[in-house]
Structures are given as C-alpha cells and as structure tokens.
C-alpha cells in the first residue's frame, strides 16, 4: 500500500536512529518555560535548526551527501505544552500517560527500590521539565558548536526560558547543564556495543515511512506466515504505530490529541536514563557462567537472545563456535564495506547485506520450547516475532499480539566504565522510545514483557537483563534456561539475579510535526 507522508513535516529522530547514521555524539538538554511569550519565541527561533525526516541521499543534488554535521530535535512534556499556552480543551485530549508523566507512572513501570524517582538525577527531582532538545553530531566539536547556537537562542529569551541543570556526570558532578551521550570507544575505535558488551541497536521496526532500504522489512516488519528468511515472511508495519495521523495496525487512525493539525505527523517519545550495574553483571556472568556448560558467553547469550560480540541470534546460532564463525564473516564484510566508502562495489554491499540480514531474518518456529533461545531472553521478550501463537495457526496473523507493541528505540550509551568490577559511577544508556501510544506500546512492553512473564507462561519471571529484580528480600531474579526435551540434559536454573539496570530519570514527551511546532510558536493551536 503506498503511503504519502511528507517527510519535511516529520522530525528526523522519528525515522532515523542517528547513532546508526554516523552521529556518534549526542547531548540532551532540558528547559523550563518561565513565561509563555518567551517560550514561544524560543520555539520559533529553534525551528530553523530542527532536523526533518527527509532522506539525506535523496536531496543530494550534486552527488554529495546532504547529511548535516549536526542534528537537532525538540519535544515537549505536558507541562511544557501548558506553559506554551495550549488550550485546556486541547491539553485534555492528550492521553493520560503523557499527561501524568513518567514519575507518576512509576508503579506501572516498575520503577521501584533503587529505580524509584528519589534516586533519579537532580534534574528530575523538582517540578517537571518542559522542553527536551537533542543534538547529535559527527564529532564533539560540531555538537558543541550547535549547543552554543542554541545557548544564544536561549539568551534571547531574557530568562523567559531557563535551561534546567542537574544531570549527574562521570566525575561525581550532580549539576551538569546537559546529558552527554556517545558511542563507546575501545582503543580509539567506535564500538557497536553498550556497557555490558552487547552489540546494540540491531533490530528496529520497519514501517512504510521509514524511507530506508526496503530490504530492511526482513526481520524489521511484521511477520506473515511466509519464510522469515525472505521478504515473503514480512510486511512493513503501518506508519500509524509510530506517527500520529496515519493508519495503524488496528485498521484505523490512532487516537490523537486535538486539533488534528497539532497531532498530525507528530508522535510521543519516552526518555529514560538507565544506569548499568557493570560490576554486578560481570560478577554474575563469571560466577553463574562457571556452573553452565557452555560458560559465560553462552550465559550472556541466553540472557539476551543474542551473542554479545556479533549480535548473532541464539536461535539461529546455538553454539559459540557457530556464532563466532558468523561474527568473523560479518566483521570482515563490514570492514570491506568501510574500506570501499564512499562508493562500495555492488558485490561488497550485497555480501554485507546478506550477512546483516541473518541478524534479523528469523523467527522462533523451530525453537518453540526455547531450548536454543529461552522464552525469557531479552530479545525474545521484547519482540516475540509471532512466537506467542505457539506454533499454531490460531490467530488472524502470527504477529497479532506483537504488532501493536512495537517501539522505535533511539539513543546512545553515556558515561564511561572505569572499573569493570564496580557498579559505581555514571554509565548506562540514554534510552529513548518513539511510539504512537506510550501506554499501549512502551509501557506495555516494560510492564508485561520486561517486568512480568505471563505472556511467555513464565509466571512472574522477569527480563534477566532489564527486569526490576527484587534487590531486597528474596535475593534477586530467576530464569530458567530450557534444554532440548529430546536430549538428556536438564534445564539450567539461574537464581539470585541482581538488578542490572536502574532508572536514573526521564519523562514523557510529545514530538510535534514541523507544522505543529510553527503553530505552537505562533500560539495558534485552537480547539474546535
């Protein structure tokens, strides 16, 4: 089905994961509006800097890449929209998840114990922030330059808008003016991993307006009953799952705030600062890894569903040996592709694409008992790929319980791990989610699939990596690693899993279209 979406009107962070487009550095800056008029002025002045969703290679007239050196995007909390003078009628048409904000949703999100808001960075302690602005850049220098440009715009508001300080930093600072994020560098080389060593950002949902390589529908779209290794096995998800005003997977236009032009081509964003307890993770892998035949790397793969180095899916590459052989081929192909830039040969691209596809072109039909990839593994939880149909043809479509729960993940690691054996410090992931409904998509995944297990028939078992394992009374989480029912090896039981990931802050944001941004700046968002 053809889709007509004006990518000029959509903010770029919706359709592009900048981290994958060669923007390894980022800053996230937050503001509060003190005075409505100044707030509108600020939005108006920022507007020309906003990066849209237009595909960069398409606009390249001269054959040169049209990509900017830095990108900027903007979004607003409910309180922010209120401060900009959006009418009450319009505000009340926003969903209650967004209106409440992340802090008030802590019980639904499982942000308890060490993840509860009292442990969040200083910036989240007071009243809500109003505006979120992101800068992504090819280098720290261009990020800084863009940041200064925004500081100048801020200065023009004469304190009518203030930058909110209070981010925790690497040196124990608690009052930094912005949150930095960056890919991780090892010996000066950028890595595709996060701090636990997992290759990250492999699989992102593919939807019609994604404007990327159409082959990415394989593994990124919604499952059909066709072969998952081919295009027949997948279809693009509907745009309305990620962008308001367009058809969604419920065969309608998603519920959206009023007036329609305010919502059209906009979406909702979740911003979360997630601290990674690297010390606990390494300790657990080392100790429990000794008890598991297959060792530490297998254990890490069982937790995630992918092998750490290569990202190879466990269900396709059940042994470390197979995964390594695949990983070697993939990195050789990546290297070749990199060497041949900017104009790689067609065979090089094809060879790389074919290997890259193997990371995502699969389902769990041959692994329904989870003896390869456990039902409780992270990637199988957050994207069951039709496995919730239990191998039967019972539903209208194999993705029936999944297609409405997909989220676009954006973001980058932050901080530096100085001591691999310690949890201390300031390092983790700035985790951002783009979705048309925060409660139906992000919150559902967080609550039902990360912090609970009933959909996988696992009672209260949680995601081993991201779950809010009880760090108090009962001594941590549990996970069963099933084994081949026809074999003679019993399943393995992992007990005492500590909480590896803790929430350190965040909120819910509305990402308006460029049109809506103009309307907000002009104060012309009128209800019916």
């Amino acid at each position, binding site marked *: 089905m053809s889709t007509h979406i004006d990518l000029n009107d959509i903010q770029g962070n919706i359709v592009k994961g900048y981290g994958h487009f060669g923007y390894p550095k980022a800053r996230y800056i937050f503001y509060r509006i003190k005075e409505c008029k100044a707030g509108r002025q600020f939005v108006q002045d920022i507007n020309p800097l906003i990066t849209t969703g237009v595909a960069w290679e398409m606009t390249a007239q001269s054959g040169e890449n049209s990509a900017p050196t830095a990108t900027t995007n903007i979004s607003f909390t409910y309180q922010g929209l209120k401060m900009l003078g959006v009418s009450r009628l319009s505000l009340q048409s926003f969903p209650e998840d967004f209106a409440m904000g992340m802090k008030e949703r802590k019980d639904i999100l499982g942000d308890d114990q060490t993840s509860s808001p009292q442990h969040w960075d200083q910036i989240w302690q007071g009243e809500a922030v109003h505006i979120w602005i992101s800068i992504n850049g090819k280098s720290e220098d261009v990020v800084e330059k863009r940041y200064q440009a925004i500081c100048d715009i801020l200065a023009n508001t004469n304190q009518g808008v203030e930058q909110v300080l209070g981010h925790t930093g690497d040196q124990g600072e608690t009052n930094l003016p912005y949150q930095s994020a960056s890919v991780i560098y090892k010996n000066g080389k950028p890595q595709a991993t996060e701090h636990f060593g997992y290759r990250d950002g492999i699989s992102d949902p593919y939807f019609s307006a994604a404007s990327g390589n159409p082959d990415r529908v394989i593994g990124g779209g919604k499952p059909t009953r066709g072969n998952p290794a081919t295009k027949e096995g997948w279809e693009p998800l509907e745009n309305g799952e990620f962008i308001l005003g367009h058809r969604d997977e419920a065969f309608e236009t998603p519920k959206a705030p009023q007036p329609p032009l305010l919502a059209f081509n906009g979406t909702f964003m979740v911003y979360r600062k997630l601290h990674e307890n690297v010390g606990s993770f390494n300790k657990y892998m080392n100790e429990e890894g000794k*008890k598991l035949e297959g060792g530490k790397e297998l254990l890490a793969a069982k937790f995630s569903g992918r092998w750490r180095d290569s990202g190879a899916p466990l269900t396709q590459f059940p042994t470390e040996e197979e995964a390594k052989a695949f990983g070697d081929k993939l990195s050789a192909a990546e290297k070749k592709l990199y060497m041949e830039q900017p104009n790689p040969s067609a065979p090089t691209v094809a060879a790389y694409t074919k290997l890259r596809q193997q990371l995502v072109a699969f389902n769990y039909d041959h692994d329904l008992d989870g003896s390869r990839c456990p039902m409780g593994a992270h990637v199988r939880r957050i994207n069951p790929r039709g496995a919730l149909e239990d191998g039967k043809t019972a539903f209208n479509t194999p993705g029936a319980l999944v297609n409405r729960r997909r989220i676009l993940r954006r973001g980058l690691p932050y901080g530096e791990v100085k001591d691999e054996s310690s949890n201390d410090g300031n390092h983790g992931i700035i985790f951002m989610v783009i979705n048309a409904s925060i409660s139906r998509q992000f919150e559902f995944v967080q609550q039902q699939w990360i912090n609970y297990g009933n959909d996988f028939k696992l009672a209260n078992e949680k995601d081993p990596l991201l779950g809010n394992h009880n760090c108090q009374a009962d001594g941590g989480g*549990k996970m069963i690693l099933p084994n081949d029912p026809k074999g003679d090896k019993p399943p*393995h*039981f992992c*007990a005492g899993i500590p909480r590896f990931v803790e929430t350190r802050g965040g909120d819910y944001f509305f990402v308006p279209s460029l049109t809506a941004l103009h309307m907000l700046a002009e104060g012309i968002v009128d209800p019916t």
Partner: protein
Amino acid sequence: MSLSGLLSVLKILFIGGIQQLFNKLTGKKSPPSAAGLTILCPIINGSCGQKSYAMQTRQYLQDMPLHEESPMAKVPNTYLCRFYVLNDVFYEGAPAVEEHLNSKYIVFSSNYYGDLDTYLTGMWEHAQEEVQKIWQHAVTFDRVQNAADFVAYIKRCQVNNSLFFNGSTGEPLEEQLKNLYLKQEFSRFVYEHQGLKPEELQCAFKAFIARTQPKNMSAPTWIAGAHKEIVKDS
C-alpha cells in the same frame, strides 16, 4: 404453533440434538468438571429508610471483605465468582429502541466445580449468614428456609449459558490449589538443588515429598482466595 414455539423445537433439534447425538456417537459422558452458573435475581422494588433495596444490596456487596476474607472463600469449589446489581439495560441510541427493566437484578455468576446441587448446598451451609444478607431484598427470598429451598430458589433464577468456555482446568478446587502449591514449592526446590550429587539430591527430594505431601489434597496447600502466599499446614 407459534413462531417462538417452532423455534424452540428447532433449538432442541439443532443444538441439543446435535450435541446429544455427538455425545452418543463418541460415547462421551461428561465427567464432573468446571461449570458456570448464571443467575438473575429480581430485587424487590421499594425502599427502606432513605435507601432503595437495590442500593442496599449493592452496598452490602461492595462492602464484603475481599480475597481470603470473602464469604465466597468459604464456599467449596468456587474458582472465581462475582456479584453485581444490574440497574437496567443499556440504550444503544437511535435507531435502537429505548427500553427499561421493571426490576433491578442481583447478577451472580460463579465458575465452580462439580454438580450444581452440591455446589449450592455447600454455599448455603458454609456461608448462610452472608447468603441471607446478600439476598435479603430479593423477591420471595424470605421463603427460603433451608439448603433445599436455596437450591430450588437459585435454580428458578438461573438462566442458561449459551456457551461456557473453559480456558483453564476442570479439577476440584482443592486439587487446583494443591497443584499450585506444588508447582510453587517444586519450582523453588529445583532452583535450590541444582548440581547436587545423586545421593544428596535423592535425599533432598524425599524430604521435599515428606514436607509437601503431593497426594494429600487438604494440606499443606494454598489457602483459597489468598492474595499473598499463605500455606495451610495440615
């Protein structure tokens, strides 16, 4: 014969008949299992003090204690059940016809195990006081004096289920609870006894069996209705 009479015959032929035929052909006898009871009990129109009987009934239901304290926790073989007071039917808006009920009804819907007479008798015997309070304003309930009256009364208020869907199991409640207890305890056991030597494992397992008594349905087991894990020991 009226049209509705004709349809009744058709109903017997089509539904009951086909089902009976099928059961006959397959030799299927329905063993005791999970069943659903649906009743609509008219509440007396009228009031006492400032409150109508329907309001009083609803308030009593709303204020009944929950979970293991619920009177229904005392009633053998109740899996899940609910009460609500139906004020009226819903008007769907034009072109639908607007219509109203002439009584308000206590709707009691129970999913239980076994045969209805036994179940209702158990309800009367184990929760008579609350049953009498719940139904005190129901039409002609004042004539109910004993278990047999109660069974007969409820059956008069019963409406047939067109379809009862069992997405769970059909064992007696006591077995369901014992099995849940065993699942919980055995799951803990396997997590705590991984990698033992054969002798140690067997020894621990025997101790586990002695403690949990898998074939003793009455204890140790989970307490019906408990919202926290509460084990009933012998």
